[in-house]
């Protein structure tokens, strides 16, 4: 199946056929009165009466089968028409985006080519690559959906042809229902495996509204954690999954508790923490206001949850918050949920004309104190960047999924606090469609050069409070305070604006603080409201800067010596007779 093939298909003509079949079916059902009147009177007895009665029964049975077949065919074709119309919609959108953005889609090979000359700007190149992949994903999924719809309805028609349906009805109207039920397709097309958000979204779009609801109700595990599926569906699916997941964890605790102590040590504590985390999630969902449960996964060391306030599917501004060391659903979800509420209120106050959603992304195993104590230099320790590196692709996929699952991209911000800032920075090395990146009290962005991040120039910010030693630690790379291309935002008090100061490492989200104001201004795209840093460098800053400067000096000396060496070698070569060279 290729693009040209799908473009030749006309779902509206298929719908006309369906309408015709439905009308035909009704006209056949209207013959029920004649069929009833045609029954042999019961008081007519004898051999001929019996023969007539038998014959009448056969004729009715055949008409019932026919009505059921017409009903089944119309139902199957209606489903196909819906799916194909959806597939065409996805394809048309992809082709339109391609045409407007300078991409060409080959209608025979389905290949997507960038026809514009490559940009010098690496961010623009990355954005073009991302867009090309997204267009290709949508094209591929639209074809997959159409092909599947075609095969599925063909199977139903083939079964009708071979007469393998057993209707089991005696009345014509019952045959209509029975036929429709027989043709109602089970959802045999699960989401594509190992596919990106664009593929997942296109798959989702290929399902009819009824099928989408059935997936949410009957197969919530298919979509609850899938990036690219719209937020409303993920939310509904995860709410459906939550009771079963909790029950499964409780059952596991019961099972383990029957085992000898040595075999269950530690595991029960972890499970109880997850159960407690699920209860925190339930408590958050019961709070007033719109919340969306966008991920729920108990398969890792920590319970992974993504919880939003507002509607991620429609909000003009979406801000994703990534927390760090010691953050866990059990311990910090409700406090972080409060902070989201305040941040969203602040964003509403700064820009009441647009809508805002905030997302708490706890989709990774953040480092915990246990990990630090068990092995300070192990991969589970906060002193290692292993956990951040492991989490970064998941965060990038989530960010990508937001854009992929919406018709119109939101103004998208990722804000990472502490170790979460490192995770956010590492994830931004991928192409994510991010419009803004803010790190608060982050030891590093995980890069030496902001050019390695796929964030538009001038939209990278660092917020560092006084006496935040973590932010000054310089672990994992250069301190963001000293990275060129990172705008430094303020945390000091601004009494004239009613904004308070924050200090230390854990207060960046304090309500009515300058730090929170700056984050809300970034999140709403109100760059003219940003307050640049006014704080003087601290001793730790200076030390870090000197160390960095010292490293730079060493690098310069190295380079000079190397250059000198090259020049001396060249001069020495010049002195040699030409034939010796």
């Amino acid at each position, binding site marked *: 199946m290729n693009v040209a093939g799908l473009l030749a298909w006309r779902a509206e003509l*298929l719908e006309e056929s369906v309408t015709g079949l439905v009308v035909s079916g009704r*006209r*056949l059902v209207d*013959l029920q009165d*004649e069929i009833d009147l045609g029954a042999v009177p019961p008081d*007519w007895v004898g051999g001929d009466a019996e023969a007539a009665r038998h014959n009448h029964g056969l004729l009715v049975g055949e008409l019932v089968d026919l009505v059921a077949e017409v009903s089944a065919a119309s139902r199957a074709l209606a489903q196909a028409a819906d799916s194909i119309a959806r597939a065409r919609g996805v394809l048309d959108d992809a082709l339109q985006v391609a045409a407007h953005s300078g991409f060409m889609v080959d209608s025979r090979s389905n290949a997507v080519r960038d026809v514009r000359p490559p940009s010098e700007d690496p961010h623009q190149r990355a954005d073009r690559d991302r867009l090309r992949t997204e267009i290709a994903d949508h094209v591929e999924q639209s074809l997959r959906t159409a092909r599947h719809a075609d095969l599925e309805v*063909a199977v139903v028609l083939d079964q009708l042809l071979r007469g393998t349906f057993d209707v089991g009805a005696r009345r014509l109207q019952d045959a209509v229902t029975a036929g429709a039920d027989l043709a109602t397709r089970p959802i045999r097309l699960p989401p594509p495996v190992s596919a990106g958000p664009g593929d997942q979204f296109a798959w989702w779009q290929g399902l009819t509204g009824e099928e989408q609801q059935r997936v949410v109700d009957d197969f919530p595990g298919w979509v609850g954690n899938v990036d690219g599926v719209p937020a409303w569906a993920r939310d509904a699916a995860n709410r459906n999954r939550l009771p079963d997941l909790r029950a499964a964890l409780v059952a596991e605790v019961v099972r383990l508790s029957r085992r000898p102590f040595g075999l269950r040590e530690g595991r029960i504590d972890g499970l109880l923490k997850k159960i407690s985390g699920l209860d925190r999630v339930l408590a958050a969902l019961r709070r007033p206001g719109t919340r969306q449960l966008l991920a729920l996964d108990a398969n890792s060391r920590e319970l992974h949850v993504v919880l939003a306030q507002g509607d991620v599917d429609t909000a003009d501004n979406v801000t994703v918050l990534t927390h760090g060391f010691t953050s866990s659903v059990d311990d910090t979800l409700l406090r972080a949920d409060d902070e989201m509420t305040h941040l969203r209120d602040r964003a509403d106050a700064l820009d009441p004309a647009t809508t805002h959603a905030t997302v708490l992304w706890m989709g990774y195993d953040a480092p915990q104190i246990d990990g630090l104590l068990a092995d300070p230099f192990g991969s589970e320790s906060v002193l290692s960047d292993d956990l951040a590196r492991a989490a970064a692709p998941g965060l990038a996929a989530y960010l990508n999924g937001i854009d992929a699952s919406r018709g119109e991209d939101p103004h998208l911000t990722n804000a990472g606090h502490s170790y979460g800032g490192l995770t956010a920075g590492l994830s931004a090395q991928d192409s994510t469609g991010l419009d803004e990146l803010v790190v608060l009290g982050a030891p590093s962005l995980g890069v030496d050069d902001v050019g390695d991040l796929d964030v538009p120039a001038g939209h990278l910010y660092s917020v560092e409070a006084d006496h935040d030693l973590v932010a000054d630690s310089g672990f994992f790379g250069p301190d963001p305070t000293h990275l060129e291309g990172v705008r430094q935002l303020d945390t000091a008090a601004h009494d004239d604006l009613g904004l308070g100061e924050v200090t230390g490492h854990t207060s960046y989200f304090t309500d009515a603080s300058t730090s929170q104001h700056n984050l809300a201004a970034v999140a709403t795209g109100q760059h003219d409201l940003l307050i640049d840093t006014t704080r003087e460098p601290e001793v730790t800053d200076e030390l870090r800067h000197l160390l960095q400067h010292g490293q730079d000096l060493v690098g310069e000396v190295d380079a000079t010596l190397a250059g000198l060496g090259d020049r001396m070698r060249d001069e020495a070569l010049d002195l040699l007779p030409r034939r010796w060279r």
Partner: protein
Amino acid sequence: MDIEVVPDRVRLAGQAMGEAAYGVGRVTPYDDLSEVGTALPGSTTAAAAEALAARWRVAMANWARATEVHGEALAVGAEDYRALESAVVGLLALTPPNPRPIHHRDSRAAGGAAA
């Protein structure tokens, strides 16, 4: 049993089946199914729809014909029934009344008056 009612109802049943046959003959879902090929050129569905449409065309024509014959048979049956009933009634009319009903035999033997 009202002997006039049964043949009438059989005749009406035959008539109803004739109307059903006529009604089915005027419904053409196979034409709608054949249009699928125009909507989805080159598809697997188009081929399957064409085959099914052909089967429906034959099956519906056969059903209409069989039902029509069935209706006619009922009409004939009704006429036969009526004719048979009429014949029976006629025959009964020609049969003279029994001069000596069985239930009178005992009373005559007992010395009752004879005709």
